[in-house]
């Protein structure tokens, strides 16, 4: 049961993120929602590679016979964190531009494109 806790945390993270995206009206909060989903998924990837009692996957320094955690999910997570930073920066900069043109970052008021 206790081994499943990380997965439950993942679900809570992603659920919170989707809730924010669906019900919040502020563009900055939308960016936070996307970040929460991303953190949940990063946690999910890391958890997949975890082994109890294993050491870091550095081949030359590991004691012989000791099991190691999987290195691939860590590489995936690092890549995904870097991509996430770029996404967040882009979203926030666009929110800034929207504020410059519309004078507001509320979804209800940023609505010139219709139909």
């Amino acid at each position, binding site marked *: 049961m206790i081994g499943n806790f990380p997965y439950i945390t993942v679900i809570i993270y*992603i659920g919170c993120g989707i809730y924010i*995206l669906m019900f919040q009206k502020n*563009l900055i909060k*939308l960016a936070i929602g*996307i970040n929460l*989903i*991303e953190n949940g*998924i990063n946690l*999910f*990837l890391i958890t*997949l590679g975890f082994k109890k009692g294993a050491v870091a996957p550095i081949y030359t320094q590991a004691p012989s016979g000791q099991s190691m955690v999987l290195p*691939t*999910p860590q590489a*995936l997570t690092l*890549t*995904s964190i870097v*991509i996430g930073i*770029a*996404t967040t920066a*882009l*979203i926030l900069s*666009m*929110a800034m*531009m*929207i504020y410059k*043109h*519309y004078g507001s970052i509320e979804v209800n008021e*940023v*609505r*010139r*494109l219709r*139909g």
Partner: protein
Amino acid sequence: MNLLNHTPILILALPLLAAFLIPIIGKINKKATGIFATLVLGLSLILTIILAVKILSVGPQIYVFGAKSPLLTLPSSLKFPIRIMFQVDAMGIFMGLITALVSFLGAIYSLAFIDKKDGLDSYYSLLLLLTVSMFGMEFTGDLFNFFVFLEIASMASVSLICYRGTDLGEPVEAGFKYMVVSSIAALMVLFAIGIFYGEYDVLNIAAIASVIKYSQLDKIALGILVSVLAMKAGAVPMHMWTPDAYSEAPAPITMILVAASQASLYAIFRVVFSLYNITLNTLAVGWIIIIFGLLSMFIGVTMAIIQKDIKRLMAYHAISQTGYMLLGVGVGLAVLANPTALQRYGITAMEGGIFHIMNHAMYKGLLFLTAGALFFRTGTRDLNKMGGLAHYMKYTTIFFIIGAAAIAGLPPFNGFASKLLIYESVYKFNPLLSIIAMVVSILTLASFVKVFHSAFLGPKLPQFIEVKEVPRSMVFAMAVLSFIIIFFGLFPDLIVKNLVHPAVMSLIEQFKYTSTVLGGM
């Protein structure tokens, strides 16, 4: 060292390198950036054609990164590939040809169209990055690599949609919408990849396909992948970003965005055919895709009829035409487990759907370019304010007629060829679907007659007295597309037999896809 073995990576590496060289070139000469980008994309197009000839005559090509030889898929004594690799088969190169052609013509068109001086270097940098990411999505044989390219594609296209955002608010609004949609889509794709990795410990598509079991987790992953990729492809009911993004982006970018959406569409087909194939419940999943297609066709075209903004109208038609592709391929998927039905009409339906991808990229690209030409000279996209433009812009009028006739499926043009394949084969599967497809086609024609009438016909208007034909580079890009449309319309057999049929067979025959990597396991 044989350079020809390295073509798959060179197609990506050259534009990628050029994308980072362009800011430096821009420091010296702003005008040179556009010419440089065009040259690099032209080189990339030539390499794609070379690769296509090789694939269609020899077979699928593999490129493994970091190995001693680019063809070494399985390092000694390993059962599964551990390295990232490109795996280009007939379907991948079919999409690659579309990408190469569309981005090359887009760059040529941009030479005259983008007249704003500042930001010219970043425009071409991002255009090249977008092209690279589309190639990557189409060529890669690794799921995580696909996710990375998907993210690059969304970031590059969002920045390009916002290109006019320094002066206007609307492009940024459209870009924000697209960014939210595409980051959720990419994150959910990553979640599905995590599920696959947790279950099978590999990330290579072929390796997963050889062991996939269609367990409960696989069903969840399939649901996530199909729905979010359909969202990226702009299928109804997840289409809300499409009209905004397509209408606010500069016209050549819209043309490339259409191809980028189709790269996501390609990913759906790759997932259901190469990854799952007959392990999944083909009838149910096939019908889900058919229903996506029907909704897209019908809702897309009905929304298009009431539009007044010319690019927004065309964007709704893009949604509607995506429905035809989903319909054709969905019918093929629904009968995948039934060999007699597959032979009788399944393969033809898929040929129609896949052929329509290329045709759509060509005529929709042409239509968006003509809309861009109108906007370039008149400064408006509102159909009510236009009129009598046929007096001033003769070439553009002819190109528009060709594009409109092709999208409506009139005989001597390419839209007719692929739509006829779809009508015929889908009628054998379920007559009602075929009838709906024909009705949608008629509505498409009606709406383009309206555009033609209100933009081009009528007396000369006083406010457009200064309007003249667009510059030569724009005419050239449109002329090439018109030529391709007519050529495909006159000789559809040639294309279907040599390009489309191998692509369809490479989707249907899953063992060929897996055995190129795993060596007949």
